[in-house]
């Protein structure tokens, strides 16, 4: 029994123009499909990462899972005890008027858990004295530690982390990623890790889902994705990451851009950028079969 299961989850957003414009200009309502029939399962104790470029729907999936959005279609099933979320911006996600002690204590009071604030602060590498400070007295990395302490206060078994290190410098990012790995080993936590950074994902994930234009295009073990990517988009993404060991070597940059979500191409959304696209790709949307949604892979053309 997986800890969390998404079954054909979709989410539409109403992006219609105002009522008066619609009436005067005879425009219909318009919907944007941010997430399109996403199915995945997360097992207890593992880290599943969702990667993709901006607008691919990865953050919407996170918000659907924690219930900040309701799915337009499909089902989210959670078998665990409790979930918590860690956000990208440690400046916006902590109340500036509260002392850190009160921020961390709120879930304890509200959920009546038996955690101690001092112990939580120690677990995330802060000192109990830091509890008396306000968020502005901390650096970005320390604030993210406070966010993690607050999340742990609710005694979750599942954490949804939406770009938890994207706002941090690399050396601080390394501290936070290591802390997350330590806490996972210690408390048997399960993570959904959302990131646009493939290198970060390769350090923390057990399995990886690659998203493009609202759909999962490849879902496989991290070792598979990073050593033998199958979907042309995954290959393109991996090629595009500036690599330290690649210094000085010429590289062919990928052409094209992510499509406008209001005017997605028919068939496979990636086909205009794909070197392997054929007629079928232009008309028929590929399903996620055996961990990859690509006609060319299914037909063994690549």
């Amino acid at each position: 029994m997986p800890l969390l299961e998404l079954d054909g989850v979709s989410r539409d957003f109403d992006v219609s123009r105002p009522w008066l414009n619609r009436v005067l200009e005879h425009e219909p309502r318009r919907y944007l499909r941010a997430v399109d029939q996403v199915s995945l399962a997360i097992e207890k104790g593992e880290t599943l990462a969702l990667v993709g470029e901006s607008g691919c729907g990865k953050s919407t999936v996170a918000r659907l899972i924690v219930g900040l959005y309701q799915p337009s279609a499909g089902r989210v099933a959670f078998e665990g005890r409790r979930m918590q979320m860690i956000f990208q911006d440690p400046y916006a996600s902590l109340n500036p008027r509260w002392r850190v002690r009160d921020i961390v204590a709120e879930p304890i009071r509200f959920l009546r858990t038996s955690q101690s604030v001092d112990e939580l602060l120690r677990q995330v590498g802060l000192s109990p004295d830091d509890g008396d400070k306000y968020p502005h007295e901390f650096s970005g990395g320390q604030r993210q530690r406070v966010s993690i302490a607050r999340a742990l206060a609710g005694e979750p078994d599942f954490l949804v982390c939406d770009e938890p290190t994207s706002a941090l410098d690399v050396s601080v990012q390394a501290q936070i990623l290591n802390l997350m790995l330590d806490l996972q080993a210690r408390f048997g936590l399960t993570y959904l890790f959302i990131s646009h950074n493939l290198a970060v994902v390769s350090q923390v994930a057990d399995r990886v889902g690659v998203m493009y234009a609202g759909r999962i295009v490849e879902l496989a073990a991290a070792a598979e994705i990073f050593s033998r990517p199958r979907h042309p988009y995954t290959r393109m993404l991996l090629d595009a990451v500036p690599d330290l060991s690649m210094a000085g070597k010429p590289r062919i940059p990928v052409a094209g851009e992510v499509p406008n979500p209001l005017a997605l191409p028919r068939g496979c959304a990636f086909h205009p950028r794909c070197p392997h696209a054929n007629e079928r790709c232009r008309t028929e949307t590929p399903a996620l079969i055996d961990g990859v949604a690509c006609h060319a892979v299914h037909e063994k053309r690549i």
Partner: protein
Amino acid sequence: MILEVRDLKVEFPSRRGTLIAIDGVSFSIAPGEVLGVVGESGAGKSITGLAIIGLLEPPGRIASGEIRLEGRRIDNLPYEEMRRLRGRQIGVIFQDPLTSLNPLYTIGRQLEETIRTHLPLSASDARQRALSLLKEVGIPAPETRYEHYPHQFSGGMRQRVVIALALAAGPKLLIADEPTTALDVSIQAQIIALIKRVARDHGAAVMLITHDMGVIAETAQRVAVMYAGHIVEIGAVQEVIHAPKHPYTVGLMGSIPRISAEKHRLVQIDGAMPRLNAIPPGCPFNPRCPHRFDRCVAERPDLMAAGASRAACWLHAAA
């Protein structure tokens, strides 16, 4: 050398004393060369760039040192002269392309205006030049796009327009401050390729400021690593990445996540970079340094030869 910076010191006087943001920074960039400047937030890389283009926000000011463009001193120029120099001799690319473009004018008009401000061209010649610039930076259908407004472009396309603007007057020096940070990886790779091509084809010197070592690895020939207002290491990119000499660079390289099939812990540097009002005496990195000894606390190291690079670290002092 196109750009020479010698012993640059930038300070911000404040009520609670003077903060020194840049302390004794020296480097130079040759024609066609891309120098990467890397460091974490607050290390002083953007301030260095702003000091060169004369756009330090008051009360920030250059306290000492000199900046030369093709041998001519530019750090003490009057405002008007500096303004003419920017755009004509120095092109600037910032992180957010939206703030560099006027939302009320078509990009064609903005390009034409920039070209005619700096070059003695007729309106139709300026238009021709603008179109060829748009083509050069890889904007499809430049004739159509010429009449479009900035909001009609995607982020990557906007950054291309900003690069076209920076190149409008054929500058000798290009300063790019986090030009790819706001972009997705696939677009980032396209912009990196463009900046490289521009340096090569125009023989311009490029100062590429970024926190992303991967971008520097792919674009620059040499790299300067900044920490707390100092250059702590400078050398060839390959050398600095594969054989870093300064303990901070060693930690920084180890903490950069790399794509690997195995999940594992990263090297971590404990602590954080000091704030400007609390830079420790001696080597600014000494409180976090695993190799610290007496001299590091007492005396500030200057850049010294360390293998094929130069590092500001007493470990490399000739005994």
